[in-house]
């Protein structure tokens, strides 16, 4: 049955996922096992296929959607009726940058990989981001900038985090078209993700 659950996610069988998860529960499979092996595990395959160019954003998004539908079915059967988050991630685009496609894809893949994602939105000032870090205490802060004219804002966020004494309390990962590892190192970020798969891998690394 777990194989069929995995297959529903990989082959975009949206209409089947809920009944498949129900049947898996009826057959007495452990909810945690359904979640880990049936729902989260195929997202690793999806991430690999996306990173290698075998599938594209729509296919990845649909798999993530189906996975979340399956999770909602499992959730009431987990201890306390809650998913055990792998960690909290705050994500948003920096001041002046409205481009949110990449950020949304990363957020979706992070959620599908078991992280609690709080999407702060777009066009965020360094001060607002830092206040949210202070309030919500995430393990990882993901910052996105798509423009060469806005990438400098990432440095501002890091500076404000340091000034507020928060920098050593959160790992900061960055992404976006004009960015690279060299930029991330230069501004003092903890990691750079070239795509959603790499961003998820960084979260796993920092919140293992």
């Amino acid at each position, binding site marked *: 049955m777990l194989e069929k659950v995995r297959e529903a996610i990989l082959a*975009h069988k*949206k209409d089947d996922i809920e009944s498949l998860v129900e049947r898996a529960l009826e057959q007495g499979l452990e909810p945690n096992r359904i979640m880990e092996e049936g729902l989260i595990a195929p997202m690793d395959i999806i991430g690999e296929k996306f990173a290698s*160019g075998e*599938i*594209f*954003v*729509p*296919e990845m*998004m*649909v798999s993530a*959607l189906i996975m979340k539908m399956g999770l909602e079915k499992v959730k009431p059967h987990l201890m306390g009726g809650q998913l055990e988050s792998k960690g909290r991630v705050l994500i948003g685009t920096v001041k002046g940058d*409205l481009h949110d*496609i*990449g950020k*949304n894809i990363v957020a*979706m893949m992070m959620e599908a990989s078991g992280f609690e994602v709080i999407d702060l939105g777009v066009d965020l000032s360094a001060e607002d981001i830092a206040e949210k870090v202070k309030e919500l205490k995430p393990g990882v802060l993901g910052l996105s900038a798509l423009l*060469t*004219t806005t990438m400098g804002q990432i440095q501002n966020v890091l500076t404000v985090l340091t000034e507020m004494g928060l920098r050593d309390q959160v790992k900061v990962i960055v992404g976006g*078209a*004009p960015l690279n590892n060299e930029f991330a190192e230069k501004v003092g970020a903890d990691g750079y993700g*070239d*795509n959603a798969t790499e961003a998820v891998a960084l979260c796993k690394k920092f919140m293992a």
Partner: protein
Amino acid sequence: MNPTPDFERFKKVVKGEEAERVPLCEVLIGYSIMSQFLGREVTPEDVASQVEFWSKAGYDYIPIPVSLMTPGKVTDESRITRLLKKMVLAKKPNETDPKAWNLEYTSFIHDRSDLDQFPWEAAAEIDYSKLDAVGDLLPSGMKVVVVSGKIFTLTWMLMGFQNFSLNVVLDPGFVRDVFMKVATIQYSVLENVLARDYVGGVWAVDDMAFGSGPMISPEAFDEHVFPWYRKMADMCHQANSLFILHSDGDLTKLMPYLIDLGVDLLQPIDPSCMDIVAMKQEYAGRICLAGNVPNEMLRKATSAEVEKYVLHMIKHAGPGGGYCVGSGNSVPDWSDFDNFMAMRNTTLNHGKYPISI
């Protein structure tokens, strides 16, 4: 240095032949750059000065947007924004937040009911006044390239990218119907503009790729977008006009489709992920390539560095035609004027065929 426009020269090179010199090619140049070039302020309304700039700067055409959605950022003044604002205010007269009708912030077509209720008739009322005004001002040898298209971009923006992406897989029939509405309007523009003898081509500006590759699968593009572009290319060719395509991102996986559907010129060959010299070697004789001078270089390099870069590209991509010099996207106002001039002057001074750099 007083270059004279010659659209036939541009066309010859686009068709893969050598002409008098390598053409210059941009789809958008900022008014600040135009103003610095002419030594007086050029405004969006001052079409005569715009024609003068494009002509004297060495371009063989002037790009004029005639479309539901024009290149660049969606602003409060954009035609699509004005249309959407009217639509939103009809439903919510007290709405005051500009984000409620700006496609950069929100989307409008989430289901078939939204599709049916969208004001398509009003959207189809395209303004041709600037095109007609420019038509009367063109110097001898110069033509207009009409900037239109945005079939892909406008469709996903109207639907919202996430909703669009999900439906590409889960309800392709719905997506096909939205494309049909958007593309029919853009296609009708071609029928009108190509009847004007001063129009030499159509430039579809439609970003289809990220730096990592296509935004949707090549098969999905082939199902939803490329049939429309094939029709547009056919219509341009029947009118003896060029069909030009602008898209950012890594288009490598889409190249066979773009060549097959009849794109004459592809611009700007995004320098963050594609190398125009390598592409010229691979696609020579099948499609003309333009651009690839990085915008960051135009912004902050020295003029000597720009000259060296342009010389390298003319030397390696210029021979045989099928190549035009241009930026890796456009020449926005924040470009360094001296660097724009270095790109332009290097082309005019060293781009003469046969290339002997």
